[in-house]
């Protein structure tokens, strides 16, 4: 339809403009092809009207320190979101909270087709920022942007105290704006109120390394200090999800336990009470029990010992012996119980009963060989030995349970401490912290 359109007599290809500062004569490059409103002379710090052919001086400011230097030099090009951007402006801003001044830096990025973006840096934490095209809905405690809820983090006054290069708005040193941040890591939604105009921007957290890579900067980025308001948590696992998974496993384990408990025969095969007499125990004291049968399949055998000792011990050397094959399981069990009174009151130690489970005993005819030893001061005692075939073993479930619980607890703890560090810097510090600080603007 537009075929055969007449040739264009359009303007020449725009070029970066080289001019001189009307104040000090230093060279000034206008990199944004006329998008800039103001440009700041790098040598005398005059703020100049970039729209004016003669670069009229709008403001001059004094710098108190000489160490304010952009980490990314003006004119550097880098690739962000698959688009080339050139750094055309830099400003330092400050905010006073509870008597402490915080400084952060903002970089103006330019692409002639895609327009302006911003990068901000605070203590080694970076954000890739653009102006919101949609209008967020905000109340005091939260904001909704594109259907996502952002929590109010902080409201503070931001001053501009150092500027360099080009800005697409009328920048002035000393100007202050009311800045409100709402966070939904890794994003931050900010409203900036200057006079009557409110500008909303949306930022996404960037690591220093990503910025260094994007702009191919030499050296290493500054190490980030602390946790930033919208820094993504290192705990990438969904904590609630981990608990749900853990609960599901725990229920599964419980079901297994119940199932195996119901399947276990728990068959009593021996129940005897024996007498121990010290007077008789010179020489060989061992004896054997009646023979009992372990029927069915290879399974567990539980041996329980009960002795009504009081401030004594009795030690039993057991051997479970297969009458058919001679295979033997040797084990020793001690039963002891001590109690008394001291300056702290009454105390007790040990137990009068003992239980042990022997795993994987094949079926067959068995007997126990028992060799008792006892406290020399114990003249005689009656003790009971009880053998049960095929008992469920629950210890393994406990280990499994703890093995599953430990990582979930660790994840939860790490997530909690990270979020605590994040919010301790906000207008809504966690409880314990807000109690300690004198001022608290908590409206949560």
């Amino acid at each position, binding site marked *: 339809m537009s075929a055969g359109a007449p040739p264009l007599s359009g303007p020449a290809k725009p070029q970066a403009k080289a001019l001189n500062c009307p104040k000090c004569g230093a060279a000034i490059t206008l990199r944004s092809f006329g998008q800039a409103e103001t440009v700041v002379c790098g040598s005398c710090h005059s703020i100049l009207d970039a729209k004016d052919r003669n670069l009229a001086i709008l403001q001059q400011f004094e710098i108190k320190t000489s160490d304010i230097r952009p980490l990314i030099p003006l004119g550097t090009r880098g690739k962000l979101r698959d688009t080339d951007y050139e750094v055309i402006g830099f400003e330092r801003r400050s905010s006073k909270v509870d008597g402490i001044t915080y400084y952060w830096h903002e970089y103006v990025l330019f692409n002639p087709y895609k327009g302006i973006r911003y990068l901000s840096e605070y203590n080694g934490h970076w954000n890739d920022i653009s102006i919101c*095209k*949609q209008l967020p809905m905000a109340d005091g405690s939260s904001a909704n942007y594109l259907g996502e809820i952002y929590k109010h983090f902080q409201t503070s006054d931001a001053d501009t105290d150092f500027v360099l290069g080009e800005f697409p*708005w009328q920048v002035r040193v000393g100007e202050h704006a009311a800045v409100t941040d709402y966070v939904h890591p890794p994003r931050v939604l900010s409203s900036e109120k200057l006079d009557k105009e409110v500008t909303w921007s949306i930022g996404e957290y960037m690591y220093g390394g990503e910025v260094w890579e994007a702009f191919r900067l030499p050296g290493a980025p500054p190490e980030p200090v602390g946790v930033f308001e919208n820094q993504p948590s290192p705990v990438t696992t969904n904590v609630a999800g981990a608990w749900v998974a853990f609960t599901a496993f725990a229920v599964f384990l419980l079901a297994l336990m119940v199932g195996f408990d119901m399947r276990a025969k728990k068959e009593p095969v021996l129940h005897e009470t024996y007498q121990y007499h010290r007077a008789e125990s010179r020489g060989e004291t061992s004896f054997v029990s009646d023979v009992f049968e372990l029927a069915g399949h290879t399974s567990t055998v539980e041996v329980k010992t009960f002795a009504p000792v009081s401030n004594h011990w009795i030690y039993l050397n057991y051997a479970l012996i297969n009458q058919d094959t001679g295979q033997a399981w040797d084990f020793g069990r001690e039963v002891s119980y001590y109690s008394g009174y001291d300056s702290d009151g009454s105390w007790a130690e040990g137990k009068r009963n003992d239980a042990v489970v022997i795993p994987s005993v094949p079926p067959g005819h068995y007997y126990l060989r028992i060799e008792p030893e006892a406290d020399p001061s114990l003249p005689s005692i009656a003790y009971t030995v009880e053998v049960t075939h095929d008992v469920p073993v629950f210890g393994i479930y406990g280990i499994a349970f703890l093995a599953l619980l430990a990582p979930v607890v660790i994840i939860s703890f790490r997530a909690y401490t990270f979020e605590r560090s994040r919010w301790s810097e906000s207008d809504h510090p966690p409880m314990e912290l807000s109690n300690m600080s004198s001022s608290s603007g908590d409206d949560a």
Partner: protein
Amino acid sequence: MTQPAANCPNCGAKIVFRWSSSVQTVCEFCKSILVRTDVDLKKVGQVADLPPDSSPVQINTEGQYGNKAFVVVGRILYEYDQGGWNEWHVMLNDGTSAWLSDAQSEYALSLSSKAQNLPAVAQVHVGQQFTWRDQRYTVSVITPAHYRGVEGELPFQYWDKTDVTFVDLRTECGKFATLDYSDPEPALYLGEFVEFDALKLKNLRSFEGW
């Protein structure tokens, strides 16, 4: 469709209208502002040199809006205290005329819309809400602007303006509206913000070094 053609009454150059409903155009050679009458073209004014411009869009830039192709046929250039912006007059391939506004590379596409009881400029304030076509719009900024110049074809006469007020309204869903107080009767434009990449623009200007 045949393209109506005529000659510039000032310099005699051939004037081709790409859009049959164009009311006004600017002669590419002598910069005369020409208005169509029933019989011929009448010179009504002259465009001063337009200031250097940073828009990547130009007359004849082609693009895509939804499933419709468009071509840029004209523009109005405005200035305000924070810079300038372009209202590019585009012709969609279904014959409708629309506006692609480019304010520091923030792009929005809007169409002239009819609505009853548009507010007078003195009655509008920031934060005020209006509902048009079941969509609620909030006044985000009121811009006193300065008419700076025109280029190409326009759907109406627009050349003797000085100061004009624009009211921008936004929504929570990317829709956008403008109230244009260029004329005694306010004009409403409804549209939406569009991503540069989504417009699939061709025939853009090139920038030295980019």
